[in-house]
């Protein structure tokens, strides 16, 4: 039997609330520390305790870390999901289970390894009886370590990180890992081909979740005010602000330069954030779809009254309460036109944990420069799961605070200024903050019709003039938002557009399309709406552009179609939302289904041939510098 090294998926089936996350994270981190590209995803129910939950880990020597729909190694710790877990093992795979589960083993095409979890834990007198179930999870870590070659030293490092260096819990857990490993060494015969071997492919990388990265980015962006209301999967973003602000913004006098308020609901959360943004603070809130629905009226006010705030939407699948613990990219069209009447939202779309950090800080610049709410759309997969990432980078540009007039500026202007006057021709006017003590500094903000001096008016011509200026401002926004990332593919015949956390799955699908199907696809990851010139150039380059996204209705496809109506027939929507993190298989099959249909439509070859003739040039991966 040929060894399969560093290329397989593991799934652990446990009960929610059984404390398995420490064990699963330990496996994930140990693989990462062995230098093997890896991802870990928690597939959990909306429940505190008792329902089945799964954790999936993928190790891949080539760096493909999207979720796979097959798993070679399955660890079954939950009697309630045992049969399902057993059925889910790939042919030739390995099945580990806690041997107190007495259920029939119905498969002969896999390797089966029972583990005496309870016995091993009971045999260690140093484990208090009420810790046995928790620590018991470490048995499968140990057995797995022995059977696939998980490095014990790296496990120690992972435990040490998890328990923040506290020796007692580290030792108690490590002893159980060792006991599991020793038992496996003495009692199990390896009958499957799956092994881990150390590499150096994670050197210099960090591991983090998107919500923590967003919070830390926001702190480096100078966040001063946050109001939020708990909601899965966004809560950990605001909680990370509470965790990191005290140390990152520590002052000698012990005073605070920020405030975080847990509001009574999402209405109040965004209201407070808007109040703070209006009075000159770098202000934010974080929520998910249902919360954003509640925030909609205020979002319209902030758009029309031109108040900068940053709103993080860590998307989960809807409509309605939907599946609160499942991921989605389903809020795009909703946010794009959030609010009644004519509104246009500026949206940032981070595609990695590193970009959650980067957009965490840049979103404030964009919001304050444009004096408008900026929505940053992350999702549950990116926000709550641990991802390998480039280290966070210190910002190389100063904070951009936008057009602000202080006391001395008003004095210099001899009080001659107007809040909504387009002095510079870019649609962006100048603003002042409460606390400006110049007698000519104030203005009266309102969501009702107003003239250039912010005075109430119902004058039709003034209404139109102001709305036209807001539209001009939206055009200006294209200069401030991040450009897309282009993954160049010489001689590509088709384009793929995607955004957000599906990047890993799309990149793997691009590889498979080329190596297995002979289709060369160039991938553009959009990072903002409104679209920049790079997006226009890309859609004009191909006759077939597959728009890949995790929702039912093809929301990015709709927005692209409206933005580029003359290219509408070239967009092929590859949209699917079942709440699971995207897989390359789904992306590939979605593209192939549409590709075949479209090839027929075009007589088989014309689209590809035409595309080839116009796209010979190689382009380097391009990141925005603004």
């Amino acid at each position, binding site marked *: 039997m040929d060894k399969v090294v560093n290329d397989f998926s593991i799934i652990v089936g446990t009960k929610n609330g059984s404390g398995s996350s420490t064990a699963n994270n330990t496996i994930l981190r140990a693989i990462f520390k062995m230098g093997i590209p890896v991802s870990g995803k928690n597939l959990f129910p909306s429940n505190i305790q008792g329902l089945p939950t799964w954790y999936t880990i993928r190790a891949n020597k080539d760096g493909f870390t999207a979720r796979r729909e097959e798993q070679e190694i399955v660890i079954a710790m939950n009697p309630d999901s045992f049969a399902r877990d057993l059925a889910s093992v790939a042919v030739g795979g390995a099945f580990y289970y806690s041997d107190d589960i007495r259920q029939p083993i119905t498969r002969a095409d896999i390797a089966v390894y029972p583990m005496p979890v309870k016995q091993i834990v009971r045999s260690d007198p140093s484990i208090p009886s009420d810790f046995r179930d928790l620590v018991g999870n470490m048995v499968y870590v140990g057995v797995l370590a022995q059977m696939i070659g998980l490095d014990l030293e790296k496990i120690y490092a992972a435990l040490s990180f998890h328990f923040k260096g506290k020796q007692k819990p580290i030792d108690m857990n490590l002893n159980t890992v060792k006991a599991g490993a020793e038992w496996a060494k003495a009692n199990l015969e390896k009958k499957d081909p799956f092994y881990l071997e150390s590499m150096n492919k994670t050197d210099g990388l960090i591991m983090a979740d998107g919500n923590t990265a967003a919070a830390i980015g926001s702190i480096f962006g100078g966040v001063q005010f946050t109001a939020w209301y708990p909601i899965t999967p966004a809560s950990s973003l605001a909680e990370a602000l509470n965790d990191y602000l005290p140390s990152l913004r520590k002052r000698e006098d012990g005073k605070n330069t920020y405030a975080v308020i847990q509001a009574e609901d999402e209405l*109040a959360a965004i209201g407070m954030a*808007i109040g703070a943004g209006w009075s000159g603070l770098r202000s934010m809130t974080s929520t998910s779809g249902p919360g954003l629905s509640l925030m909609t009226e205020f979002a319209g006010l902030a758009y029309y009254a031109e108040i900068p705030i940053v709103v993080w939407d860590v998307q989960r699948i809807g409509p309605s309460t939907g599946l609160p613990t499942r991921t989605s990219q389903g809020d795009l069209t909703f946010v794009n036109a959030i609010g009644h009447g004519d509104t246009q939202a500026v949206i940032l779309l981070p595609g990695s944990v590193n970009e959650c950090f980067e957009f965490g800080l840049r979103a404030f610049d964009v919001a304050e420069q444009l004096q408008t709410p900026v929505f940053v759309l992350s999702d549950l997969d990116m926000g709550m799961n641990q991802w390998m990432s480039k280290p966070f980078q210190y910002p190389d540009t100063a904070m951009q605070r936008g057009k602000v007039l202080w006391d001395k500026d008003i004095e210099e202007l001899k009080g001659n200024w107007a809040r909504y006057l387009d002095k510079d021709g870019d649609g962006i006017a100048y603003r002042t903050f409460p606390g400006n003590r110049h007698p000519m500094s104030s203005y009266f903000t309102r969501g009702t019709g107003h003239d250039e001096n912010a005075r109430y008016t119902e004058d039709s011509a003034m209404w139109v003039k102001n709305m036209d200026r807001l539209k001009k401002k939206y055009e200006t926004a294209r200069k401030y938002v991040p450009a897309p990332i282009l993954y160049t593919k010489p001689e590509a015949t088709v384009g793929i557009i995607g955004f957000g956390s599906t990047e890993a799955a799309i990149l793997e699908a691009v590889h498979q399309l080329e190596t297995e199907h002979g289709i060369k696809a160039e991938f553009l990851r959009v990072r903002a709406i409104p679209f920049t010139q790079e997006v226009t150039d890309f859609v004009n380059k191909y006759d077939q552009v597959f728009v890949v996204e995790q929702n039912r209705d093809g929301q990015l496809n709709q927005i692209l179609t409206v933005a580029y109506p003359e290219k509408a027939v070239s967009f092929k929507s590859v949209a699917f939302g079942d709440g699971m993190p995207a897989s390359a298989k789904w992306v590939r099959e979605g593209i192939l289904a549409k590709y075949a249909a479209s090839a027929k439509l075009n007589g088989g070859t014309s689209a590809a041939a035409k595309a080839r003739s116009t796209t010979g040039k190689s382009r380097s991966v391009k990141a925005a510098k603004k």
Partner: protein
Amino acid sequence: MTQPLPMAGAAANVNLAGLVKNDYRGNPSTLCQGCGHNSISNQIISVMYEMNIVPENVIKFSGIGCSSKSPTYFLNRSFGFNSLHGRMPSIATGALFGDHTLKGIGVSGDGDTASIGMGQFKHVVRRNLNMVYIVENNGVYGLTKGQFSATAEKGLSLKKQGFNQYMPVDICMEALASNATFVARSFAGNPKQVKELLKAAMAHNGIAVLDIISPCVTFNNQDNAYHSYAWGKDHEEPLHDITYIAPRNEIILEEEMKEGEIREVSLHDGSIIILKNLDKDYNPTDRFEAIRVLAEAQANDWLATGLIYIQTDKPSLTDTYNLVNTPLNRLEEADLRPAPDMIDKINALMF
């Protein structure tokens, strides 16, 4: 800054802030003639002038409704925010963090506070935001032409709406239940009392809820309705006469008050208000007593007016956040962005 300083021999109408009354005015009112809200706006102008408050040190807030239009009609030199229906409290909460040295003055109505805004009202009260929260209470929706509000009394009949079958919300009771630190009620037809209560409210550090019965002259002014002038004049039951006097040495409130005794309540800024107690048992620092008086007034159809409750030792919301002395909105990049070496420390924490 071009603000004139007071000069020796200055005209008598220049106050200690160096301003004349015109500096406190707003735009002409567009509310109905004779509306109680206009009278309240005028009292706000007088109070600010008499208390020598610099308009730039105040932010005006409102929600939506007739009452919420009124901040346009006073303090033109102050920043103002006319927000959403029922959402003034959240806007004010965020805005006052921008510069914690500023004082908020919010004007809301009974629909804006007791119906759509009940949640935010009670939460801003429990957070003790440093703001005077005025409810111009007329028991009716004026801007949408005469529907019942949640403060309309049971049994009231209105043209087109018919008979109100629900019990009214008592704004002062709701404020007390939410641990308000200042609760008062007055009547727009009693400008002297409105003014003195406004002064006390301005001097209070924390939330000061002022429920002012302000009759709607157009849609709810039947002589037998709570919120009418005629009813108010007949049923007003002042708890005490109060007089505001300029800051001087703090006077501590005594525990027991006798009938007819004059009681002084010291406020956070050192100023005091003097209460003339008309009820021999009434003590405005006793929360149980405040609740009893409100319940009794409701049972007797009284309009109990005056300072119903005050607690002066509780920090305001921004006080509890231990903020730097410099207003947050004056901080610069050096104060806000962690030093470059912190990025390596953070990356080291990310396993």
